[in-house]
């Protein structure tokens, strides 16, 4: 609905920001490579939706914290100027759950967020997960 200001939102429609479906990702705080956690595949779907995992990976992901997820997390941390830990640390997940635009940050494996201006830096990602092997190149 549309409201002229916040107080005009009917109490029964006043939603709590914690109802954000992505808030469930906060349960993965502290997860890192090598772990296997129930439901971890959902955050892989999130990263794939925004381009951090190529569409070539079919959506039936495992719950393993594998290289695919680690590379996606590192690129996300680079884009949002977070500490590049490759882990689902608290600050990274606090960013992940913020509402956002549905347009991907990464297109065809190249982060659009790191180009621009006079410094054209491109980061391609390596997916050395099981199955297809991809190469990596950081320029």
């Amino acid at each position: 609905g549309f409201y002229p200001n916040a107080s005009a939102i009917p109490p029964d429609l006043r939603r709590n920001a914690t109802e954000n479906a992505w808030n469930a990702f906060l349960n993965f705080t502290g997860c890192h490579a090598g772990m296997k956690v129930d439901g971890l595949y959902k955050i892989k779907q999130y990263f794939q939706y925004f381009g951090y995992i190529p569409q070539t990976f079919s959506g039936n992901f495992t719950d393993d914290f594998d290289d695919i997820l680690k590379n996606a997390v590192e690129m996300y941390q680079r884009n949002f100027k977070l500490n590049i830990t490759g882990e689902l640390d608290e600050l990274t997940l606090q960013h992940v759950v913020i509402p956002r635009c549905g347009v991907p940050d990464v297109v065809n494996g190249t982060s659009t967020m790191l180009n621009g201006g006079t410094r054209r830096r491109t980061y391609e990602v390596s997916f050395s997960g099981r199955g297809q092997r991809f190469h990596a190149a950081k320029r």
Partner: protein
Amino acid sequence: YSFFPGEPRWPERRRNLTYAFEPRNELTEEVKSVFSRAFARWAEVIPLTFRRVESFSTSDISIGFYAGDHGDGEPFDGFMGTLAHAFSPPNGHFHLDSAENWIVSGEGGDGFLSERAAVDLESVAVHEIGHLLGLGHSSVQDSIMFPTITTGRRKVDLHSDDVEGVQVLYGANPNFNGSRTPTPSTQQRDTGSGDSGAAGRI
């Protein structure tokens, strides 16, 4: 700032763009005026014009609120999460998630809303129009083209990063003489963050 692959933009012969609203949404004039304000912010800095028309099927840009799966392969996800998406030129489709509580705030620049679980409509509109023009996401946190917006935040003033990017695509509006007054928060953020020093608000 960044662009979509191939840096698509509206062709020279299509710089006076029209936009229309999904008739089934039956939007009020107040809601529609939010979008005209958002278009005006971009029209101020580039030599493009945006004119509202009634014919949804033939306008250059089509704006609609939809829930869940709405036929473009990018289903919305309900309350919060993904708020909206728009497609690069010359597609012109601009979709917003009807599951959100949209605040149709008044005039004025950046600020904060009292309601944490609501989204400022004009802030999202200004961002998505950036995509309709050919801009991708930016890593400059204060820019309009930064991918996320915290609930309760109103962010509508174009940042120098946004202006520089869109003017690479279309050149500057000859009437634009934007003077930048760097905002303290941006300056503080820039110290040592490696962002370009020219950051500031228009």
